[in-house]
């Protein structure tokens, strides 16, 4: 059985529950996690960890913008995981295992994965999700100036091939 808060009001109407709220934002969160998470991590694990941490202190129904809140938690976890996986790679080296144990993401993906998670998040929200800088700033709890600066920094790090096709 699940612990879904399946509740009804006195008129027998089903009121919003955490699971319903989560189901609505899950597709976007998963895509976001796939972009900002390290290549070694499963996006669903990242979403699940973020949700679990959030549910420990908040009901999703109590949040003004569950998607934005969970996105921030995912981004924080992704940044932490990046450091964790750096330690794992060090362990791999000590074991002298084959390089092929680390999933390879060649070409453009590899280039994107070299960017910090926050910069990938900003590029993704702007380029794919179509958010304005103001909306991204609100979602990630940053200032617009910081979003603009991080975006420019990310774009400068990308290769000429990717940059020249940018709008």
């Amino acid at each position, binding site marked *: 059985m699940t612990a879904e808060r399946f509740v009804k009001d006195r008129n027998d109407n089903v009121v919003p529950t955490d699971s319903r709220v989560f*189901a609505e934002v899950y597709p976007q969160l998963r895509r976001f996690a796939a*972009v900002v998470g390290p290549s070694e991590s499963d*996006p669903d*694990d990242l979403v699940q960890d973020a*949700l679990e941490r959030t549910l420990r202190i908040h009901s999703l129904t109590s949040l003004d913008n569950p998607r934005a809140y969970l996105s921030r938690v995912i981004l924080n976890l992704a940044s932490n995981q990046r450091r964790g996986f750096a330690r794992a790679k060090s362990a791999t080296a000590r*074991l002298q295992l084959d390089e092929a144990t*680390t999933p390879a*993401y060649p070409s453009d*993906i590899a280039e994107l994965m070299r960017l910090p998670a926050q910069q990938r998040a900003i590029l993704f929200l702007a380029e794919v999700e179509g958010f304005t800088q103001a909306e991204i700033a609100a979602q990630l709890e940053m200032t617009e100036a910081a979003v603009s600066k991080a975006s420019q920094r990310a774009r400068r790090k990308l290769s000429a091939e*990717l940059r020249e096709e940018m709008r």
Partner: protein
Amino acid sequence: MTRLKRSLDGLASRGRPRGAMDVFAEASNGADTSASPIKAQDRPWTAFVAAFGGVLVLGVLAAILLPGSPFNPSSEGPTLISEDEVILLVGVPSDTGDGAMIYGQLIVGEGGCLAVTRAEAGTFLLVFPAGSVLVPGAATPTVSVPGSDNISVGQFVTGGGGYASATVNNPQIPEIPADCAAPGSEVAIAWTIRPEPTTTTVPQMATLPSTSPGPGPTVPQGAELSWYDFIPGSVQLAWRSTATGTELCWRTVVAEHCVDDDFRAPEVVVIPHGSQLVVISRRPLSGLMPDRAILELSNGDTMNAAPLYQGPGVDLVYAYSNPIPEGVTVVSARTADWPAPSCQTPPSSALNVSGSAFDMAVSTSPARAGQIIELSVARSRQDNITGIPTFWQCWDGSDWINTHVGTKMSRDSAWDPEVYRIESGPAFALPGIIVPDTFRIRVPDLPPGTYRIEDYVGTELGWVIVEIED
């Protein structure tokens, strides 16, 4: 679409989604994912194709026949090609590399759509790389794939790409005929695909050839194992049936062993790796992914194994990389618990219950750890339903955080109430119960101090302060 946008979009589609309800269930209380509460009628797209499937197929076929159709194979968009009752789905061009592994046997699946199947993972509709076409007049349905040998139905294929839900509108794939999309079905979107050679020609280990490019099928008892390189050059894994379930077998260049496959964190399997160790486990049904494995050695030392790798089939791998001294053995191993929350004495401002949306009370406070007490909820909210579960909380210095989840029992229940640590324990819950009501709850095993019990009625939050004494 710009190249950057396409790359980001490809990155966003990596991996195989588990689905919202599975993720939610695991995150919230560790429910068995096989018992996902999703029903077909809850998926709007599925309900739509179920209702209008025939119309959809006719529409798609008509579109194929029309000149200038967007389904024209030469176009850059996703295409659908139908010939001799076989339907080939073709995706958009991608230069984003191999991504997730796609492998298995090519079959003609539901509704005539080509699909890839493998025993341990099921069947996925297969979207072929851009430019793929059906070979006309072939005795067996055969696909010509740019940059690859032709692939015929029945052959094993391997490639890379991603997985997506068939019920989500995805611009990378053509609209899927209703007959091909069973409820909950998934689509493997191949950016590269090629036929598997009929014999293994490139063994990863000279003396230990693998026989499967990825996690192979669970073979029957006594059958030859289908080994794949879990950690190339070091550890291979395979599965087989037993009289009581399934065994996971591992082998290295020096050893081979099979264990019961029914293990999950905190349980681990330890694989000797020369003088070092590889420790494998699976993510717990509930709780965070453990950050390390703990090994107790015969010389009395306790060692930590760091996370190493997440691989297919077994998703947690830890490595203890320092050499184990000669003659020393591992006497026990498990994944670590997450540290207990750091609980502090709450300030008086945090003890204010006036913000609680309804009345709650406990029969005994102070209470002792492990004692069963009564919790009364919302006598003023007659006819509402109190939700599940109840959270036991402590003050972490800045906020109340959940430490345990309590299951609530009705007055007639013969079961004992129980509490579980949020991070590691399985939890279950009962359907909502009409309030006002009084439940028995078990006080968690926590040190003396001031705690809070939080509960919901409707969507409103209530709480009560409770003390634990020695």
